[in-house]
Structures are given as structure tokens and as C-alpha cells.
């Protein structure tokens, strides 16, 4: 456990300049909220320190609740979580993107393993990953309709046959 605490401490020191919030949800986890503009710098800092490896990128849809009458409607958001692991320590970089600004730069130039995860994120959540050089689908069918992102909460299946989709 001592090495885990040490690893988390080292990561915190590296990431502090980019953080808008830092917390420890579990003893082995450090979560750092960062602004999308700081993503590349933060990942670069971890990689330069040889701090662990990128283990996963997680998308998390957070549609806004309908506002009460008279209140302004908050905007729906997607959280993108970059999970880095070193031994038992897990560091999460959390980025919150509004639906209208769902754009992030690719980190695959710094962490090549990110490519497949970013591809999946783009396909499942409709987050645009700038600089990701792959096109087409990774796991969805070739005739999957454009603009339908299955892991967004608003997607609840195809009740109506999809126009133009083969076999529909």
C-alpha cells in the first residue's frame, strides 16, 4: 500500500498544475478534473514521468435533467475519463464536455494505445477526437446510421425501422 500511496502522490504532484479539482474517491484512486485544453499537456506530463500506462478511456453520458419552470435549462454533458494505472494505483483524468462542444484532441500521438479506445469513444458517444487518423466503424455495423450514438442515454433502441438500413 505504501508504494501505491507514493505513486498517487507522485501523480498528484505532476498533475497539480493542470487540475481544476483533485479528489481521492478510493484509497488506490486519484481523480483529477482537467480542462480539455490541458489534456495533452497533462498526458504528456504523466508519460514524461513514465507514470504507469493508459489502461482505458471511459465515456460517461450525463444528460441534463429537465429544468424546473422558470429555470434555465442546463446543458447535457459527456465525461471522458482517462484511466492510467501503475501497480495498484489508478489515476483518472476527468474531462467534462458539453454536447455542443464534444471535441477533444487525440492523445494517441503521446500514448499510442489510446487509438482503439478513442475510436470506440467516438463511435459510441459521438465525441469528436481531433487528429485521430482512423475512419469508419470499429465495432458498429457498416450500415449503422450516422449520428446515432448507442451509449448515449437518449438512445433506447430502434423502435421504427431505420430508413435506408439494410434489412430494416
Amino acid at each position, binding site marked *: 500500500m505504501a508504494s*501505491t500511496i507514493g505513486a498517487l502522490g507522485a501523480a498528484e504532484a505532476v498533475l497539480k498544475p493542470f487540475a481544476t479539482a483533485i479528489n481521492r*474517491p*478510493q484509497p*488506490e*484512486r486519484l481523480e483529477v478534473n482537467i480542462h480539455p485544453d490541458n489534456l495533452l499537456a497533462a498526458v504528456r506530463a504523466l508519460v514524461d514521468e513514465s507514470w504507469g*500506462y*493508459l*489502461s*482505458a478511456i*471511459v*465515456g*460517461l*453520458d450525463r444528460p441534463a435533467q429537465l429544468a424546473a419552470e422558470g429555470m434555465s435549462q442546463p446543458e447535457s454533458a459527456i465525461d471522458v*475519463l482517462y*484511466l492510467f*494505472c501503475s*501497480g*495498484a494505483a*489508478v489515476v*483518472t483524468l476527468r474531462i467534462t464536455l458539453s454536447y455542443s462542444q464534444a471535441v477533444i484532441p487525440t492523445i494517441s500521438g503521446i500514448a*499510442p*494505445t489510446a*487509438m*482503439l*479506445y478513442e475510436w470506440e469513444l467516438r463511435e459510441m458517444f459521438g465525441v469528436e477526437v481531433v487528429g485521430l487518423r*482512423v*475512419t*469508419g*466503424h*470499429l*465495432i*458498429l*455495423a457498416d450500415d449503422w446510421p450516422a449520428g446515432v450514438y*448507442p*451509449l448515449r*442515454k437518449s*438512445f433506447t433502441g*430502434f423502435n421504427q*425501422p431505420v430508413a435506408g438500413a*439494410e*434489412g*430494416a
Partner: protein
Amino acid sequence: MTADTNKFVIPIGPQHPALKEPANFEFWVDGEIVTGASVRLGYVHRGIEKGAEARTWTQNLYLMERICGICSHVHATAYTLGVEKLAGVEVPPRANAIRQLMAELERIHSHMLWLGVAAHEGGFDTLFMYSWRDRETVMDLLEKISGNKVHYSANLLGGVKFDITPELAAEVHKGLDFLEERNRFYLKVVTTDETFIGRTRDIGTMTTEKAEFLGAIGPTARASGVARDIRVDAPYLTYDQFPVKVMTHTSGDLHGRFIVRIHETFESIRVIREILDHIPQGDLTTRVPRRIPAGEAVSRVEAPRGELLYFIASNGSEKPERVKVRTPSLCNWSTVLSLAIGLKLADMPMLLSGIDPCFSCNDRSIRLKRGQQDPQVWSWEKLRQYGIEYYR
């Protein structure tokens, strides 16, 4: 991924001779030599992550088990560990020891399955038939413990369903003795058979640096000298009480991947014996609330193919907000695409099977054509009625 249009492209798959599971590869070649490669996944994508959001915490346990037919237990274990973490529940040590025991039996069956598949791809069908015949022993042990050969369904949220009685322990010991002897023979075969060595040595060699750069994990990485194993790096269940050694090899080639997996099988046999002899006493289950407190948890386990990561978010209700599964096969694809370059086309089947790819691991959704008149598409009601009639 896009291919270089100026090259001669050989498409392989989704149905193809190398693997019994679907993926599409494009190898572009110059004569016999591969100069580039791309992969297209998703042929068995079943939408399980989406499906999880519509099911209760308990129902999801059964869904997660069905992500993979080879490593069903380890998926359920990663899921339960995450949910238990969110619920703040402490599982009895005996239950955790039984989970570890099942996980290691599963590793033996998975590695022996792989040995057979890889031998088959190398044109060595005798080894394939031997290893699959002997693998029945470990499948039978799993069946004796759980009642099932494939989906043992040992986990519950908060514990396990089955106990290990002294009679069962004796049977497992007996089975392990046989498996150990057989695997010694396999180790001898893969390290001495000239033809086999010719197909594996110095093929698909990956240096330690390259393995780390490409993000390889599991036995594929360990065969390149990357000493990374979640069982040791971040012990879960009772892996601190019954530790395992990380098995590595320095050759980094296909041959090394055979040796590492066979050594891991020995290590699993050793640790199972230790668990059987020193299993903690106590309950098998503890109570887990129906609603899981809001929060997010990450759980990581070492599946037979490498690190398996679950990210679970709860909104405090009876159903999860999000279950993200990052499976090990996905991480190892980039190694294949990179290592293929410069090898002969004929080496591709063995290179592909060398990472022990698992497509249900990767994909997790299936595509159904929704033709109303199609007799091949049955409604749930119709299927259920058919089942009832059939067994009447």
C-alpha cells in the same frame, strides 16, 4: 483502418481458416512478405454495456458472465468486486478463496484451450487433440464444483454459491496431479519438437520496450519480459494470502508465449493446491443491498489473457448508471498489427492466435436484421413457446 491502395491486399475473414471467431484482417503483401495490416472488429458486438444499464445489479452479474465463454468467472469476479466496493461490503475470506480457486481453474482451462488452438494453427493437430482431451479434466472439475462446465456461475454479489467440501478437494487434487503431468509433457513437446520450434522460434519477436510501447498485456507481454500481473501488482480476492509468481520469458517470440502460458498453468496448479490445503473457514456470503450507493469504482483483475478492467458507476438506484468493460484482447491487437510487418503471410494464423484473441471479449454486441417476415428471426415469446413444446 485504411489500407495503402497501391499494394496487393489479402483480406482474411470475418470467416477464415485461422480462427474460429470472426474478425476481418487486411494484410497487404509484397510477394510472401506482409508489409502492412489492418483489423475490423465488431462482428459479435452485443451491446452488453448498454444492456447493463437496463438491468438490475443482480441481473447484470449473469450478463457479465456471458461476455466470454472461456473466462466467464473472471468477468463476474471483476464486476462483483466493483459492486462490492461501491456497496462497502466485506466478503467473507472463504468466499474470496473459492473465487480465486475458480479463477485459477479457469486459467488452466483457458491456457490449455489456447495451447490446442495455437498448435492447430501451427499444423500440429496431435498436440491440439491431446491438449483438448486433457482439458476435459479441468472442465470436469469445474463441473463437479459448480454443476457447469462453461458458465460455472460461482459468484454472487457478496460471496459465492458453492462450497469446497473435503471430498471435492480430494477430487480436485487428483485432477491437478494428472494435469500437471500432462503439462510437463506439453512443455517438453513445445521446447524439443523441431517442427514446432521452427514455427515458433524468432517469429513475431517483440522486445520489452516494444511490448510496453504497444500496450501489450497478459502472457503476450510477459513473454516479452514485461513483469506485469494484476494478481501480484494489485492483489485482489485472496491473492495476498495465496500469492502467485509472475511468469516471464525474455525471448519475446511466439515460442516464449507458449512457454509462459505453460509455466503459468503450473503456477495455477501450485496455488490451487495451496488454497485447497489452507482454505479459510467461515461463511460463503454476506448481504449486499439491492440499491447500490452512488459512486464510481474501478476494479482490475488478471484474466487469462491479461488485465481486465471494469469501471462501474452507480446513481444510487437498483440499476447501474454505467458499466464499462475494457477487455485484454483489445489491448493486444496493436501488437499483432505491428509485428505482422516483415513476416510471411503463412505465419499470420499463428501470430494471430499467439495473443490468444477472444472476440466475445472484444466485441460485445450482435446485429440482428429486423425483417418482420424473416422466419429466422423469432420473438422471445415464440422462442419460449418452442422451448416448452420441444421438451414436452
